[in-house]
């Protein structure tokens, strides 16, 4: 009988494990970002990029500098000197200084808070979005994006990536030509390979800000499952012992 229960458990866990990635629907069809939120170095590089290129416009209102320091393995001084450019106190959240009213005037709408972006849109979306900007003079700020067409944000990382342009396919009669691929017209400070790594780091950092508990939950989870599996085995033995009476009294 224990074999039957073990095979049930294996089946249930297998099903759960198999369905989860299959069901991760958002960012469907996009190349995988391949982030690993437990990778401290990647998180630190991502944080550096975020505070150099993103925080000018985007807040992380649910993330405190102090929590960042603790989770990313940084000291208070490191965070306050290298990441905190807003003059906020150590225990305060990351709030951009861009006035909302001006932002609306410049971009049409205020840049969204990014604390939960990775949970709302998915890391694959963030990673691919950041890689898919191209110059488009027809747009108000001169940029467009293949993953999120007509996005109002210009490419914040153009210095790193370089200037990307769209290669259009042949236009069907009466339609505009679709973008076939993107190519770098003027190289930036990073090679395409390095840039993909940098955007992966940034996506990893936003995956962390969306759920800081993820770091803790996965590391505790292993022990919880092992404990519960052991407990379940003991409970099986207990049941087996008691039920000897029942089997004898057939």
């Amino acid at each position, binding site marked *: 009988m224990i074999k039957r229960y073990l095979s049930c458990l294996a089946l249930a866990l297998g099903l759960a494990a198999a369905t*989860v990635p299959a*069901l991760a629907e958002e960012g469907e069809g996009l190349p995988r970002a391949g982030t690993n939120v437990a990778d401290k170095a990647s998180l630190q590089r991502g944080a550096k990029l975020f505070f150099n290129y993103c925080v000018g416009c985007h807040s992380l209102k649910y993330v405190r500098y102090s929590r960042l320091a603790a989770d990313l393995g940084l000291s208070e001084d490191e965070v306050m000197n290298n990441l905190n450019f807003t003059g906020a106190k150590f225990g305060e959240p990351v709030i951009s200084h861009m006035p909302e009213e001006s932002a609306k005037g410049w971009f049409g709408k205020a840049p969204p808070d990014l*604390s*939960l972006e990775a949970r709302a849109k998915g890391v694959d979306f963030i990673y691919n979005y950041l890689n898919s900007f191209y110059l488009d003079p027809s747009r108000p700020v001169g940029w467009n994006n293949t993953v999120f067409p007509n996005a109002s944000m210009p490419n914040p990382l153009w210095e790193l990536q370089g200037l990307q342009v769209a290669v259009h396919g042949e236009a069907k009669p009466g339609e505009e030509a679709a973008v076939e691929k993107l190519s770098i017209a003027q190289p930036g400070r990073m090679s395409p390979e390095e840039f993909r790594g940098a955007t992966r780091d940034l996506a990893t950092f936003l995956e962390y800000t969306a759920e800081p508990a993820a770091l803790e939950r996965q590391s505790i989870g292993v022990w919880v499952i092992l404990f*519960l599996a052991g407990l379940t085995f003991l*409970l099986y033995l*207990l*049941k087996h012992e008691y039920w000897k009476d029942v089997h004898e009294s057939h």
Partner: protein
Amino acid sequence: MANVFSRIGDWVNERAPNMMPAYRKHMTEYYAPKNFNLWYYFGSLALLVLVNQIVTGIFLTMNYKTSAAEAFNSVEYIMRDVEWGWLIRYMHSTGASLFFVVVFLHMFRGIMYGSFKKPRELVWILGMLIFLVLMAEAFMGYVLPWGNMSFWGAKVIISLFGTIPVIGGTLVEWIMGDFLPADATLNRFFALHVIALPLVLLLLVVLHIFALHEVGSNNPDGVDVKHGPKGNRWAADKPKDAIPFHPYYTVKDLFGVGFFITIAAFIIFFAPTFGGWFLEHDNFTPANNLVTPSHIKPSWYFTPFYAILRMIPSFFGTAIWGVIGMFGAILLLALLPWIDKGEVRSVRFRGLGFRIALAVLVISFLALGLVGAGVTAEVIPEWFPGVDVTTWENAFGRLMVLGYFGFFVFVWIYTRFGFEKTKPVPERVTMHD
């Protein structure tokens, strides 16, 4: 020490002589058939999840803010700043989904082994009331985080009442307390979710168990152990094929609990959103009445009923038929003891027609779940490029609606007019392990 306990026991007994016998009646001297199989774990597991929801819910209310302006922030506060808040919240959100998993399996067990048949109709009716209250409880709980799917889900579901002729529009405003789901809606849903419905739920669960213990449990063979031979090793006047609930089924259910929480822990610690099925992507964006999510869909456990609503077209100038169909789907389940007139309880000895109909019911229910969750709308263009998605989805969905309602019509005709050819039912229960 034992002396102290027995003296306390005596003291209580003198003052409330019926309390100890009640414990015996429901635990040590409740005799249950000895041949329960895997399907019989889900009742006690549902009780476990109910306790989990109440306990984690109490801790969530300590930090949750009931206000449209603060609710979303307070949930993130729980997820980030409250000690172990993320664990409590995931236990509650995963528990909600697993509640429906175990309740669906529990209900299927009842249909499969004829547990709803005489003399257990009252148990079944009380169970269906629990299911109804549970759905209301889950719906209102889903609104509380005040994410964008909370808002739009609430708007769509409350609008269903708007299809009722004459009073519909006023009723919708009365339910919401506003013209849109708003602060007033959130506050009243909180009151209902946190105290009103849980009280009703607890009362119904107690009645469900009491009603069961009056008539005794059914079993996979559907054989009435009370009518079999008497005398077992615990009592001379009790059924030979029954065993005391405590300790035998308490230790067995404890093992089931261990097994179940191992799976629950796997979800809580490694896949708390379950790929967007237990916690949806769109609900990580605050409620916004100006931005509609690309697909408004209810939580997965409502999708079969939601699909029935969507698949039934409106005619005679009103959309109420879908709403009637959706509630009718639940009402028909509740009426099953009077629809299914077959004498034999367990599927093991029932006619082939019933077995096929039961399979059709399960397949249609699951397929309707996929339709309601928008999976078919995604899969059809992938599998059959170039076809008209709405036409195909409607054709498939309506076929499944027919399958679902067809089960009840078929089973009534099949059993009412004596078409069922059953197998002989054994005298005694059988044990397979």
